[in-house]
């Protein structure tokens, strides 16, 4: 592990209840949901992690406890180190506080996570769908969402598929 990263991770371990996992050069810090905003604030203000490179989520269905991990990838330009924060959340519509106040670019990332996974962010200024149409029902990237593919149409099932295809009215 990088020296600077070592320092940062030890400090986080003292101040917050986090667990750390290392794999080769990558460091993942597991943060409880209530503390994520504080952790991000600390990292941004004291340790120069000024860039939120990505904010996504992972669905571990059918494992239910916890079902989702929300992943924050932070990067520091000054020290050239990357850090990953993972927040395990559980439940059907989990909710955690927004980091929009700390990193303004989290706005669209959190909208995308809401749209694709159904994870709500409290305190977000504009929580609505960003990729799917506004009246879409369901959260597509969850593991129990159907793939939504169309059956390939061969000669032997040509007419069955043809009957079910949506066609314009005019």
């Amino acid at each position, binding site marked *: 592990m990088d020296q600077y990263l070592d320092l940062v991770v030890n400090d986080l371990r003292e101040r917050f209840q986090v667990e750390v996992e290392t794999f080769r050069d990558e460091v993942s810090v597991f943060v409880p949901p209530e503390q994520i905003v504080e952790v991000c604030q600390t990292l941004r203000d004291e340790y120069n992690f000024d860039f939120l490179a990505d904010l996504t989520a992972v669905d571990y269905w059918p494992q239910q406890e916890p079902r989702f991990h929300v992943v924050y990838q932070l990067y520091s330009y000054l020290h050239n180190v990357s850090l990953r924060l993972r927040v395990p959340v559980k439940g059907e519509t989990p909710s955690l506080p927004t980091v929009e106040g700390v990193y303004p670019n989290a706005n669209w990332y959190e909208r995308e996570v809401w749209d694709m996974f159904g994870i709500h962010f409290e305190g977000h200024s504009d929580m609505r769908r960003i990729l*799917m149409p506004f009246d879409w029902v369901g959260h*597509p990237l969850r593991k129990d969402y*159907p793939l*939504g*593919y169309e059956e390939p149409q061969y000669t032997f099932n040509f007419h069955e598929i043809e009957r079910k295809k949506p*066609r*314009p009215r005019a």
Partner: protein
Amino acid sequence: MGVETKLGQMGVVTTTLEEAVNWARTRAMWPLLFGLACCAIEMMATAASHYDMSRFGMELMRPSPRQADLMIVAGRVTRKMAPVLRRLYDQMTEPKWVIAMGDCASCGGVFNNYAVLQGVDEVVPVDVYVAGCPPRPEQLIHGILTLHNKIKASKPLRQG
């Protein structure tokens, strides 16, 4: 264009009204600027100087649907874009034609999922399908010429 008789040296040709109308419709069809994804690059290449679309009168791509009469749907159409596409199609004035360019506009292409329309003929009636991913400019021009042939064979002035 069917020239029925040419009267001597007077420089007069006669033809049927239908043929004249079809000739006028095919000779300067203005496409609607509707490149959505990668096929748009090939559409631009067709409109550029090497494979000229200007020889068909089509170099003028209109962004406004009121002024266009051909919609070349170039690229995949998502479910979010489908009502927009239909609205633009409805805003085009008659006569109008649609070319579904590429695999994604014809049948959904490689994207067989919840977000992409499986063929733009789910929302608009299509006249010519051009296959390819993306279709080469020659293929698109073949599609345009097929559309020209289709229009020449149509009978716009007959009722029913």
